[in-house]
C-alpha cells in the first residue's frame, strides 16, 4: 500500500528531527535478536545507512518501494540481505532488523497522546516498513539461492576430474549419482580435455556410478557421438552387472561403442589401438 504524500512527508520529517534517538533505538532493537553474532555497533552502521537512504527516498517523495526514488534504498536493502545470507543469518533474523524500525518509531511518536491522526500515520508507516521487510526477505532468498548455485557448481567442478592416463589417452572416473546437469558438465570437460591434450582416446569409467537411467545413458551416448565427430574414440569401462541389466532392459542401444570391464582393460585397449595406428602411419610415411 502506498503512503499518502503527507504521510511520507511526515515520516521523513520525523526521521530527520529525531534522527539520533531513532538511530540509537533501531540499532539496539535490531541487534538484540542477533545474539551477539553482530555487535550493536555493526548492526548500528547498517541501520544508520538504511535510515539515511530511507530519509533521502522520503524527501524525494517516495510513496512505495516500486517508485524510482527508492532505487538506492533497495540497493542498500539488497546489500544488507546478501551480506547476512553469506554470514549465515536466517531470513527472519535479517527481516527483523528492518521491522525493528517500527518499534523505534513507536518509541518516539506518542501514538496514544497524538490521537487518531497519529495512529493513522503510524499504521501507514508500519505497512511501508512491512514492505521493506518483505523486500529484504525476497532479496535474502535470492542471495541464498545464488550461494547454493555457486556451491553446486563448485561441487560439480570438484567431482569431475579429467585425467591424462597415457600419451593420447584421457579418462574421467565418474563417482556418485549422475544427474543430467552433472552428465552435461562431464561431457563438456571431457571433450575439452581431448582438444587440450590432443588425445584421440577417452575412457569414461562408471565403476563408481550406482545407477544409470535412460537420461544418463543418453548423455553418455551423446558424449561418445560428439567425441566421434571430433575425431576421438570413447571407451566405456566399469559397467557393473546391474547397470548392464538396466541398459538392456531400457532398450538403450550402445551400438558399436567399445565397452570394457575395468579401467585397466580400457587403457590397454586404447594403448593398443593407438600403437597400431601409429605403426600404420609410420609404415606409410
Amino acid at each position: 500500500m502506498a503512503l499518502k504524500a503527507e504521510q511520507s512527508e511526515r515520516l521523513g520529517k520525523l526521521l530527520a528531527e529525531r534522527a539520533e534517538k531513532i538511530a540509537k533505538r533501531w540499532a539496539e532493537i535490531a541487534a538484540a535478536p542477533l545474539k551477539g553474532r553482530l555487535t550493536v555497533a555493526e548492526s548500528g552502521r547498517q541501520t544508520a545507512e538504511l535510515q539515511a537512504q530511507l530519509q533521502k527516498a522520503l524527501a524525494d517523495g517516495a510513496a512505495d518501494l516500486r517508485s524510482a526514488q527508492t532505487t538506492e534504498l533497495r540497493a542498500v536493502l539488497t546489500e544488507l540481505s546478501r551480506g547476512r545470507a553469506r554470514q549465515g543469518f536466517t531470513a527472519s533474523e535479517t527481516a527483523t532488523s528492518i521491522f525493528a524500525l517500527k518499534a523505534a518509531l513507536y518509541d518516539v511518536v506518542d501514538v496514544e497522546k497524538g490521537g487518531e491522526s497519529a495512529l493513522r500515520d503510524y499504521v501507514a508507516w508500519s505497512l511501508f516498513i512491512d514492505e521493506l521487510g518483505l523486500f529484504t526477505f525476497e532479496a535474502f532468498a535470492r542471495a541464498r539461492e545464488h550461494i547454493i548455485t555457486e556451491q553446486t557448481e563448485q561441487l560439480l567442478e570438484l567431482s569431475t576430474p579429467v585425467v591424462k592416463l597415457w600419451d593420447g589417452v584421457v579418462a574421467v572416473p565418474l563417482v556418485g549419482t549422475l544427474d543430467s546437469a552433472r552428465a552435461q558438465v562431464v561431457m563438456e570437460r571431457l571433450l575439452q580435455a581431448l582438444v587440450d591434450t590432443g588425445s584421440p582416446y577417452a575412457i569414461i569409467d562408471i565403476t563408481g556410478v550406482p545407477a544409470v537411467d535412460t537420461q544418463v545413458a543418453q548423455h553418455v551416448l551423446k558424449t561418445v557421438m560428439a567425441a566421434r565427430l571430433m575425431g576421438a574414440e570413447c571407451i566405456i569401462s566399469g559397467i557393473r552387472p546391474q547397470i548392464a541389466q538396466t541398459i538392456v532392459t531400457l532398450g538403450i542401444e550402445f551400438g558399436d561403442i567399445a565397452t570394457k570391464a575395468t579401467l585397466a582393460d580400457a587403457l590397454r585397449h586404447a594403448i593398443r589401438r593407438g600403437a597400431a595406428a601409429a605403426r600404420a602411419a609410420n609404415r606409410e610415411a
Partner: protein
Amino acid sequence: MERVPILKIGSVLLVSIQVDMQDQMALQLQEDLGQRIVDTGAKGVIIDITGLDIVDSFVGRTLSTIASISRVLDAETIVVGMRPAVAITLVELGLSLDGIRTSLNVERGLELLARNAEPETVDDLDFLDEPETTSP
C-alpha cells in the same frame, strides 16, 4: 566475394576456414576444391574448422558433399579441429556427418591420411620396370 584459400602441402590440400561463411562461400569452396583436386592430383584433403564457432546443417551438408566429391576424385577428406561445443550441438541437432572422417587436429589428420593411403611403394610397382622376357 571472399574465398576460402586452399593450400597445397605435398600431396595434401589444406583448407582452413577462418571466417563465418555465407552459404554461397561454402558452395564456392565446394566447387574450388573439386577443381584443385583434379589440377593437383591431390590424394588427401584436410579441412580445418578450428575457426568455426558453429556448424549448422548447411555447412554440415556442404562438408559431406565435399567428402563425397573428393572420394569420387580419389582423394580422402578429413575434417579436423571441431570444437567441443560445435560437436555437442551437432549431436543435438541430429547431424551425424555420415561419410566424413574426422581428427582432433591437423597433425592427427595427416597421420590418418598416411595410415589410410593405399600401399603404393616402389616395390609394388617393380613389375612395371621388368623387361618383357616372355615375348618371343
